[in-house]
């Protein structure tokens, strides 16, 4: 809980060529539930002896691969993130694995110390006023981390007690929340007896026990079956309708599109786009995305593909030829001809209607997952 960290670039940050000047004024606009300014986080790759043979938690940005960084290397997880989230918003952080979503949520929930920049939650600085921040937030982790030594009901009651909720109130609220989450009959069960989806719902109930105004969820539906995922969506929609601010990270387009009022697309620690799902889709480069997987380099037929009537844009990415057209089906025969004339055979064809997915591909050149 040292007070000197905010705004001061930590050791090592200055060595990066694109290191911005530290921004020191805290973000304290009262109408904002969450605000970050020039938020930056650099991790140091664990040394060999601390890595202990397990997989590295951080994959080097850009590669998307799980090749561990050399020991002592610096890994920039966030490179200057600015976000302003109003009270009562349902806000989505969308991006592939390694985009910086978990780091962002980690900083906002006081568990990760920013290397530079500031972040405030409910008007309180996440580093200097961490206790105030913790009092106002509920956190649903990526992987359920219930207190396995306690029963389901005890998990909720003890959590509430940490926040000063009186016992009688906590017991009643615990039962009410378990009922809402559809696990009202599992109160006396041991946590290990719950399924993955039930444990995730227990985590949501726990996060709500002290009635926080702001809820953070880090990829809450990863690993859930479709039925459990839809049940969770209904719960989240209801919580938002009750007036809570929700910040959720996800790498599912459909989830962001369906739940969030505004979505920030982040990749490699940077904000790429920020708008309502409809606004983002309107930014997509128009039309359906047609992808042709070829048997060789796709740059040969690109020029011909651009000349095809109806094709708005065409590009080559490795062995994939990408074209955008208002009506995808109509340009497919012509695109195949282009490929064949360039001496390439077509292995496969994909069609994607205009969506956050096509926007993401046009912004990053890569798919989400």
């Amino acid at each position: 809980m040292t007070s000197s960290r905010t705004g001061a670039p930590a050791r090592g940050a200055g060595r990066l060529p694109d290191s911005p000047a530290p921004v020191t004024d805290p973000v304290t606009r009262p109408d904002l539930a969450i605000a970050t300014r020039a938020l930056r986080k650099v991790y140091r790759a664990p040394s060999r002896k601390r890595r202990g043979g397990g997989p590295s938690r951080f994959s080097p940005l850009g590669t998307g691969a799980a090749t561990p960084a050399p020991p002592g290397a610096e890994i920039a997880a966030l490179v200057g993130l600015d976000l302003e989230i109003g009270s009562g918003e349902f806000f989505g952080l969308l991006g592939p694995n390694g985009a910086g979503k978990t780091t962002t949520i980690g900083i906002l929930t006081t568990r990760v110390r920013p290397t530079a920049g500031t972040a405030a939650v409910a008007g309180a600085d996440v580093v200097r006023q961490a206790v105030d921040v913790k009092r106002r937030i509920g956190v649903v982790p990526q992987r359920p981390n219930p207190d396995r030594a306690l029963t389901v009901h005890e998990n909720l009651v003890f959590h509430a007690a940490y926040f000063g909720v009186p016992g009688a109130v906590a017991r009643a609220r615990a039962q009410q929340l378990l009922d809402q989450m559809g696990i009202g009959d599992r109160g006396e069960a041991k946590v290990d007896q719950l399924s993955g989806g039930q444990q995730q719902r227990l985590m949501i109930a726990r996060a709500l026990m002290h009635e926080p105004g702001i809820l953070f969820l880090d990829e809450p539906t990863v690993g859930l079956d479709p039925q459990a995922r839809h049940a969770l969506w209904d719960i989240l929609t209801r919580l938002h309708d009750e007036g809570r601010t929700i910040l959720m990270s996800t790498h599912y387009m459909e989830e962001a599109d369906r739940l969030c009022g505004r979505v920030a697309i982040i990749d490699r620690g940077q904000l790429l786009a920020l708008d309502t799902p409809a606004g983002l889709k309107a930014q997509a480069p128009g039309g359906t995305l047609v992808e042709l997987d070829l048997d060789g380099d796709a740059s040969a037929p690109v020029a011909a593909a651009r000349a095809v009537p109806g094709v708005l844009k065409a590009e080559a990415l490795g062995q994939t030829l990408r074209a955008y057209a208002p009506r995808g089906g109509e340009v497919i025969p012509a695109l195949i001809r282009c490929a064949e004339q360039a001496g390439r055979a077509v292995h496969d064809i994909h069609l994607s209607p205009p969506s956050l997915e096509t926007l993401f591909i046009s912004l990053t050149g890569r798919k989400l997952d």
Partner: protein
Amino acid sequence: MSALDSRSPASSTRVFGILLLRDLHVARRELPYFLVRTTLQPLLFVIVFGTLLPKMGFVSRGYTAALLPGILGISLAFSSLQAVALPMMADFGFTKEIEDRLLAPVPDYVIALEKVISGGLQGLLAAIFVLPIARLIMGPIPGLALGHPIEVVTIIALGATGFSALGLFLGTAIQGQQIGLMFSVIVAPMIMFGCAYYPWSGLNAVPLLKYAVLVNPLVYVSEGLRAALTPTLPHMPVPAVLLALAVLTGAFWVVGLKTFRKRSFS
């Protein structure tokens, strides 16, 4: 939000109490396993060295007087250290359970301090549990004096806190995979060279070792309990014991809190 803001925030002391309640609640449920795990080994030692060997005539009956304080020391060292180090390794290494408590609205040191106090209480409990059983197994112990209960309790409480602070450090500094290494490289030598099985003055025969063992907190617990329980045997003076234990406990707390914070925040 307004209803939330008007509510008086839970004080750190109150949250500390709740965290302690949680640990004691869990400890009570697991008490039999806990006691077996932490006191069986010292008690087996009591059976062999405190009963069998004297009966066989390999060691003198008077040895039990030197042994009893050491056995108490080992029991509390073992239990306090394990009560903190093992959950820390599991929580930070795999289950991540402690994240719930790290999000409680208190400064991080409150959570670490609570772990140390709860570990100390469990060590105290183990020592209180072992004392009558050891006495029962060994039979009458020459020179056993129960006239200094305050000294006994003070040394046990301070020693238990020291070992649980050491547990905080080891549990957060050592990776879960190296847990076996912790027992063989740190705990075992600490017990063998902790003056638990022989008085410190006995090391006059090996002067180098006599001063090297002074970094070992178990030496002070064993010697302090000797001073309080079997004062006719050679022992360190109690003020020196208390001072050394206080210094070591403080040092373990400082480094333990540092490694705890390193694991708590990235």
